[in-house]
């Protein structure tokens, strides 16, 4: 299979003083793939993700994101990715419409483009009656859906999702994954972290980080077979239990 590679890292590392947060990780992610990035707290996920988003310069190693170098072209990287985290997603004191317009605006889309796309988006989410409402007044599940839609509003090559479904009710969580699949079908690569192990199953491939290194990388089915586990939960537990690093 000859697929376009959108994320490529080679022995990518990040040191903070003596501490090796990310230790020579090498992997590839293909266009349109849903790539799960798992690991225990403190395994180095956040640090790695920051480097991939162009927010943090690596200590050593190579990485190309959407074809751009993580050392030299961080600004180009930012133009070609979307980002959504559980903590910051939207401006609560702006309306739904204003939020979308803002996110379109910072990626340099024209007003007409923004208008056309946001109308389509609002219709798809079924939120026609809420466009003038402050986002803060909307239910959490809706906010997460809007946040995701804003993150891919400018059609980025890759979207990074940092625990996007934390605390969301089970139905909204599944609707959220419908959105993820839809984005992947459009060719957007989805790079996602989660603490829900059932969600790990929804990914095409998974990587497991332990103590700053990638300890396993494969499809959920292969990982389960490899670890002779019935569920991803067991795989994760088996792997993370061996972690040395716990308190950082």
């Amino acid at each position: 299979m000859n697929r376009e590679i959108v994320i490529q890292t080679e022995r990518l590392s990040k040191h903070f003083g003596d501490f090796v947060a990310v230790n020579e990780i090498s992997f590839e992610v293909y266009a349109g793939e849903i790539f799960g990035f798992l690991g225990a707290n403190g395994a180095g996920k956040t640090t790695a993700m920051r480097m991939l988003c162009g927010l943090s310069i690596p200590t050593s190693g190579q990485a190309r994101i959407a074809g751009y170098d993580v050392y030299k072209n961080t600004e180009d990287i930012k133009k070609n990715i979307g980002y959504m985290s559980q903590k910051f997603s939207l401006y609560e004191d702006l309306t739904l419409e204003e939020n979308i317009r803002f996110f379109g605006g910072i990626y340099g889309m024209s007003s007409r483009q923004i208008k056309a796309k946001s109308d389509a988006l609002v219709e798809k989410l079924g939120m026609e009656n809420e466009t003038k409402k402050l986002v803060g007044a909307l239910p959490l599940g809706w906010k997460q859906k809007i946040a995701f839609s804003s993150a891919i509003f400018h059609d980025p090559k890759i979207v990074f999702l940092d625990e996007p479904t934390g605390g969301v009710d089970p139905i909204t969580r599944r609707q959220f994954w419908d959105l993820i699949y839809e984005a992947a079908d459009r060719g957007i690569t989805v790079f996602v972290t989660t603490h829900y192990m059932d969600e790990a199953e929804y990914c095409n491939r998974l990587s497991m980080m332990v103590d700053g290194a990638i300890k396993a990388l494969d499809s959920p089915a292969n990982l389960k077979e490899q670890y002779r586990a019935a569920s991803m939960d067991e795989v994760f537990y088996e792997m993370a239990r061996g972690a040395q690093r716990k308190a950082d």
Partner: protein
Amino acid sequence: MKDVVLEHITKSYNKGAVRAVEDVSLEVDKGELFGLIGPDGAGKTSIFRILTTLLLADSGSAAVHGFDVVKDFRAIRSRVGYMPGRFSLYQDLTVEENLSFFATVFNTSIQENYDLIKDIYEHIEPFKKRRAGKLSGGMKQKLALCCALIHRPEVLFLDEPTTGVDAVSRKEFWGMLRRLKEQGITILVSTPYMDEATLCERIALIQNGRIMSVETPDNIIASYPHALYAIRSENMNALLHDLRRAGEVASSHSFGDHHHITFRAGGEEAVQQNLLQRLREAGHRELSLQPIRPTIEDCFIQQMPA
């Protein structure tokens, strides 16, 4: 003896605009490990704050360890342990300083109740000189639990202690809670993770400020009204789309590597075979369909108002 009692508690914010808790009644037995299961915004935190005397309910009454939450709030405050959801300790104090500070505030010392926290504290003791801000999520939760336990409370309130904590730390954390329960402490814990529900003795499923059911996890699962099946094929995403279009399928939700479905009007053998046949014709390979026991998450979804 009931250690926690809520009767028709209602709480709203912004002059009634946001109805956080609506007519919630429940009872927790002494020594019970009780779980409030529901997503963010379901009203879990409001219920905890009412019980820990931090918030006044609009209507209804509540009592903890026999004391009224309004009249006897002082008595309650010296008898409960509380770990708020966003509780993050003093980042600039060390592990040891945090713990001894809370011990003194609760009029005790680390030594006095060390046997109670020993199990948990041993995990973090190697880092006792480290500032709390430099601990990992799992470690912080353990330290926070130690701080909430240091005065040997009668009732322990843990508001989403495992949110944002990885699966391994979560498992450890629940192990600790079970050992605490054995010491006779009543524990009320809330969580948005449905898989943790089975670790409680009894649970309340809560959504939009309302309690949907209060039961043991087994009874909640047993009362699931439909026959539930797990289905899978090679292309799970396409399968989900096809299932949604199938008329005989009443509900379909993805659960890890399977989709859970229920059939309209029972789901007799013939209906199932017909569905599989059609799916095969639609190009699905390696199809499998088998009856399964529902999980709490299935029950939650089923009980959620449409």
